[in-house]
């Protein structure tokens, strides 16, 4: 039996006294497209940051490509990260570089390819996200959705075996959304990538993911295929899939009632 590409074993993470994730256990197989879903602040992005080694867990073990993250030094971590591409929530484009130079950045840093080849590769990556015509623009001249597409092109510039996308569909118009979702599915299946998506887009995730993880209250609340999720009778899953206010996940942040704050009722 082969080892999963990524595995979390009893992982706890928090900031100071605040616990974000606790006793997290799951694994991701090679070539899988996994969607991580959950409410705002449920720790979805933190899972990606833990895999990338940007933050370290307080307890438990995380293994990526057969390496225990907690035992890696800076040099080994950098070497491992060369096998990862990450699309950040806000894009994280370099604001002093053009769109073209942003996508060329990892190629220039990690390869000694001739300029002509870098140009061709960058144009191909930009074409994949529908933006080969805006290479000369600066990031400040792009819409939020376009910036995120450029960031996706940059994340796949080196064809990394592991691709992590934080909210890749946020701010995209329906055409771009469908195209980017199709691109992620195609990249995963044709190039054999392993893709992790953090997203709120239920429909798109159900359409392209192989498996979905639902995170809530710092734990994994449900895991399953899109089909299993659709058919689930679990109240947590149903509330998330149907997008209803009433259910185990409260819409309002915990705290005193509005009536008490307005002085209309006793606390």
């Amino acid at each position, binding site marked *: 039996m082969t080892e999963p590409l990524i595995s979390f074993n009893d992982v706890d993470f928090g900031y100071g006294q605040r616990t974000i994730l606790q006793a997290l256990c799951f694994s991701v197989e090679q070539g899988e497209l996994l969607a991580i879903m959950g409410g705002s602040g449920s720790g979805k992005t933190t899972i990606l940051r833990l895999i*990338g080694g*940007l933050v370290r867990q307080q307890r438990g073990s995380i293994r990526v490509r057969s390496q225990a993250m907690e035992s890696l030094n*800076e040099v080994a971590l*950098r*070497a*491992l*990260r*060369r096998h*990862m*591409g*990450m699309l*950040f*929530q*806000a894009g*994280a*484009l*370099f*604001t002093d570089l053009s769109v073209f130079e942003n996508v060329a*950045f*990892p190629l220039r*840093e*990690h390869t000694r390819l001739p300029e002509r080849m870098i140009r061709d590769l960058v144009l191909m990556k930009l074409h994949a996200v529908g933006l080969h015509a805006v290479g000369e623009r600066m990031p400040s001249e792009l819409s939020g959705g376009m910036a995120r597409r450029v960031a996706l092109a940059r994340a796949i510039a080196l064809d990394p075996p592991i691709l992590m996308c934080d909210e890749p569909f946020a701010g995209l118009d329906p055409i771009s959304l469908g195209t980017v979702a199709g691109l992620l599915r195609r990249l995963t299946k044709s190039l054999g990538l392993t893709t992790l998506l953090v997203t709120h887009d239920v429909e798109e995730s159900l359409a392209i993911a192989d498996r979905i993880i639902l995170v809530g209250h710092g734990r994994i609340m449900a895991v399953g295929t899109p089909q299993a999720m659709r058919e689930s009778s679990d109240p947590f899953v149903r509330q998330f899939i149907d997008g209803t206010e009433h259910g185990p996940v409260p819409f309002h942040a915990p705290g005193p009632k509005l009536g008490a704050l307005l002085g209309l009722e006793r606390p």
Partner: protein
Amino acid sequence: MGRFGMLGLRSLGAWVIAQLTQLGMLAGFYARLSMLFWSAFTRPRLLLAQLHFVGNRSLAITLVSGLFVGFVLGLQGYYTLNRYGSEEALGLLVALSLVRELGPVVAALLFAGRAGTSLTAEVGLMKAGEQLDAISMMGIDPLRRILVPRFAASLIAMPLLAALFSAVGIGGGYVVGVVLIGVDSGAFWAQMQSGVDVVHDVGSGVLKSVVFGWICGATALAMGWLARPTPEGVSQATTRAVVASSLTVLGADFLLTALLFGQ
């Protein structure tokens, strides 16, 4: 000890630990930055771009300030020396003041205000915009790729800016003393030539400006690197960078002067 006493002691302890942690982080940061200094020369294009950014863009303010400081030195120096009938020593006074003290110190203070704030804000905003995390996730060390070229550029630019400040200042002193007031031109230059020791005076000034370049560059980058990743955090870090750099430069100047010129 009462309950309030214990609480006070606990707060004091927490504050001391926080300060020591911060100090340790700063020391580690400065040490890594200094150790990686030479690696900046393996990427000459990055270094040149940063030299242009921190050096060339600080040139105008440095030259203009140097000129006015030279004017004032020429004027004040003449009034003082004239009382003792030794106005021919004006060139020496202007040159020594600038080369030993004012050149390195004022250029460093201007550098901290002009280039230092830019460096802090740039690095702080890169942190707030997750750009440093993005670089890390590409398997690149952001310290080596982003910070070291900026640090090396500060270290190289500072002595050059201080030298230009002193040169323009001497020109300013000449204009006021010789051209406007009428001090003898030959005496102005001859006194300067015989009284300024290249190794002791000019060398000390260069050494000071290298140290100040290290202080200004490292402090500005450290403040940006350790800034809270919010607009307020970056704003506070920028202010802190100017204050910390300026005070450290002035303190270091006193120590260096005592060491270099002490009997």
